[in-house]
């Protein structure tokens, strides 16, 4: 293991050394080892590359690198060849020999592995692919380049230089001011100015000097995975942000760090653990960091699968070893948080922004985004934001854009629009606390304030696209059930109110809705929002209210006409055989779990409506488009 780096000069010398080592092996094959690509078989692919390279005795000339998430999950496993920047997608272990013998040895491009867009155009270079070209990747810039388990890789691309600068050249207060001036707002969803929080925490009295620096990595919003990808792909950027925070907020006191991370993210826990140990070994964590006198270390706490623990006070209670129930915030956590000490909590993406701001300056950072933050940190949304673009969209993946990019730009220019020629219906942002926005709002610039104005919110950055086959009432039911399940139960309005909302929406989906139900939903929603203690309850009705606002006609159809236009709500749909299309192949009959289909070979089948359970299996298996759903 490397010796401790004692000073900023040591660090620069070490950087030169690792950079020189990298230069001697310029040719690199980068295999994406994010969760998405791993699920598509990236590890088997990497093993195949390793074996094939050693068979050809190429391992000294060509470096194989397992990197973090490249973002284009839809097309995994992804392989990028450096320095050319050639991108191959959906690569299988069987392709490896051909790649080495043709592409690597002779420079011949294998057409079938190139990305092809919906119009049939193919692209060779990663940065020419529209999905990447239309993004502004600064936080994710190094994700596809560095091996997340190698601190040398991070140092080679300039890592820990911002930390050295802060510790050598800046007073803690100056760092707080810099972050405040940058306009960085909390990426976990709240959008609170980070610099303001840091200053308040620094100013709060602490008798023994202890201040807690926490990273909230309990990314619970379904459909959001940007924090996971940062931790898996570039864990040192998060750690470096936290160390800078410790200096700014607590030096010369006794800062202590925690990362609270979801147990559903085992790979992120593992990579962060490795990174922390490397940072300790190199002397970026521990006593007297880079000779500055700062002492700081970080502990990992794994969550237990409770959504509410993403709420700051619930998270702190959970770290203390109790059930994660939120508490009232009349005393702010910056004054009395974890173990009643001043505590500063920021989200993963917020922390990862910090080294960037230090490295590239406030002027650069404020040139990106919306509004003016020169004398009011609430005056705009600055920097970039990573979104998880998922659902009914062609290019599922992680997308980083400047604040203020429009929904249309994200969904169509980067996301490639809706698959299967279907029509866009809505986009859901902000997770279970956010709302569903209709087509008429597609040109909305996305920032903290604009999203709130239209009844949604930024949240942590999940962006779920829906087409005409999504039922908005069913979606509202999904979110209400989710939140009713995740409510900690402390406040009656949240615990019982959500349960009642769930019963009403379920009734509507079952075709038993009453005329007064729609009004009842909005009245009850208001009570839940106003009378609950924490953000879970306060924002819980958002998915319901926004669908009521923008898609009211769907509720009315369910209630009055007993009709589900998206053909999702089982009680309101029937499956029948289209006689002219049915070839009598017997497949649906064989697969039907309720024996509702009768028919003989080469004769038209029929479905017994009394036995049909609307499971849709017949429609899934039919090759002749002979099942009608209405």
């Amino acid at each position, binding site marked *: 293991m490397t010796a401790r780096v004692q000073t900023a000069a040591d660090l620069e010398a070490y950087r030169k050394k690792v950079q020189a080592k990298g230069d001697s092996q310029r040719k690199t094959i980068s295999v994406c080892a994010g969760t*998405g690509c791993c*699920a598509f078989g990236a590890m088997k692919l990497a093993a195949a590359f390793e074996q094939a390279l050693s068979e050809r005795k190429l391992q000294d000339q060509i470096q194989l690198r397992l990197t973090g998430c490249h973002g284009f999950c839809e097309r995994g496993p992804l392989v990028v060849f450096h320095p050319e920047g050639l991108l191959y997608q959906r690569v299988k272990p069987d392709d490896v020999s051909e790649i080495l013998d043709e592409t690597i040895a002779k420079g011949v491009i294998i057409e079938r592995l190139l990305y092809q867009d919906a119009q049939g155009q193919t692209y060779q270079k990663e940065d020419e692919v529209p999905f990447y070209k239309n993004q502004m990747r600064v936080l994710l810039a190094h994700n596809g380049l560095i091996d997340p388990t190698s601190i040398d890789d991070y140092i080679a691309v300039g890592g820990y230089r911002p930390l050295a600068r802060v510790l050598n050249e800046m007073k803690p207060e100056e760092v707080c001011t810099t972050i405040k001036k940058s306009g960085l707002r909390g990426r976990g969803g709240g959008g609170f100015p980070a610099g303001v929080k840091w200053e308040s925490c620094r100013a709060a009295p602490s008798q023994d000097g202890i201040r807690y620096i926490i990273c909230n990595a309990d990314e619970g919003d379904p459909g959001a*995975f940007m924090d996971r990808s940062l931790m898996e792909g570039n864990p040192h950027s998060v750690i470096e942000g936290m160390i800078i925070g410790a200096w700014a907020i607590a030096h010369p006191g006794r800062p202590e760090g925690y990362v609270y991370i979801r147990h*559903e993210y085992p790979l992120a826990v593992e990579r962060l653990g490795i990174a922390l140990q490397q940072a300790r070994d190199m002397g970026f964590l521990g006593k007297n960091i880079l000779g500055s006198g700062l002492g700081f270390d970080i502990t990992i706490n794994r969550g237990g*699968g*409770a959504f509410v623990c993403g709420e700051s006070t619930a998270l702190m209670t959970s770290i203390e070893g109790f059930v994660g129930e939120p508490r009232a915030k009349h005393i702010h956590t910056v004054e009395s948080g974890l173990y009643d000490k001043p505590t500063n909590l920021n989200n993963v993406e917020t922390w990862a922004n910090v080294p960037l701001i230090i490295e590239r300056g406030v002027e650069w950072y404020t040139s990106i985004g919306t509004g003016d933050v020169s004398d009011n940190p609430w005056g705009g949304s600055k920097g970039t934001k990573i979104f998880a673009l998922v659902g009914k969209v062609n290019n599922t993946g992680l997308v980083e854009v400047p604040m203020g990019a429009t929904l249309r730009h994200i969904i169509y220019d980067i996301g490639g629009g809706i698959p299967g020629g279907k029509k866009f219906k809505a986009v859901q942002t902000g997770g279970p606390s956010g709302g569903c926005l209709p087509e008429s709002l597609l040109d909305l610039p996305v920032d903290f304030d604009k999203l709130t104005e239209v009844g949604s919110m930024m949240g942590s950055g999940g962006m779920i696209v829906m087409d005409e086959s*999504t039922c908005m009432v069913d*979606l509202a039911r*999904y979110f209400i059930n989710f939140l009713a399940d995740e409510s900690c139960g402390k406040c009656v309005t949240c615990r019982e109110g959500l349960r009642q909302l769930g019963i009403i929406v379920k009734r509507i989906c079952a075709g038993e809705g009453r005329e007064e139900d729609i009004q009842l939903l909005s009245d009850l929603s208001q009570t839940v929002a106003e009378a609950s203690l924490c953000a879970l309850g306060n924002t819980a009705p958002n998915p319901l209210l926004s669908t009521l606002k923008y898609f009211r006609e769907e509720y009315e159809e369910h209630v009055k006409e007993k009709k589900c236009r998206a053909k999702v709500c089982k009680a309101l749909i029937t499956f029948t055989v289209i006689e002219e299309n049915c070839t009598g192949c017997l497949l649906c009959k064989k697969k039907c779990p309720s024996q509702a289909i009768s028919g003989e070979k080469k004769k038209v089948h029929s479905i017994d409506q009394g036995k049909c359970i609307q*499971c849709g299996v017949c429609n899934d298996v039919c090759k002749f488009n002979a099942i009608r759903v209405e």
Partner: protein
Amino acid sequence: MDAKKLNTILDKYRREPSALLAILQDIQDEENYLPKDTIRQVAGELGVPLARIYALSTFFSSFSLEPRGKHICTVCMGTACHVRGAPRLVEHIEREFDVPAGQTTPDMQLTLETVNCVGACALGPLVILDGEYHGNMNPAKLDRVFRPLKKKE
């Protein structure tokens, strides 16, 4: 859980009650669930009320107080999976194995669980069987995934 193993876990966290969550996670990793006798011992060793451990183990969805099956099937219920048809997958497995979500088959072969999101949205709807991810599922494709299990029965 045998006393030696339990002691190793408790010592790892210096027997601090604040580490209860981590201790329970380690026990569950070893045993696949939280055995009654073991959590009684933890309560005694750490000097915390058993009720507090019970509260933790029922509050956090990752804990199970019942033994889980030989195979564990997790269906992702994230929003992206939901809009692509995840509920139909759960219903299908419930029907095929006659086991409600959150429970284990009487022969202890299969536990069916749901999770709020595993963040592999590009593969949705997604089913994880014994740690292996199966993406872009529909009920008909599920039968193929479960074929090895069905054979053993």
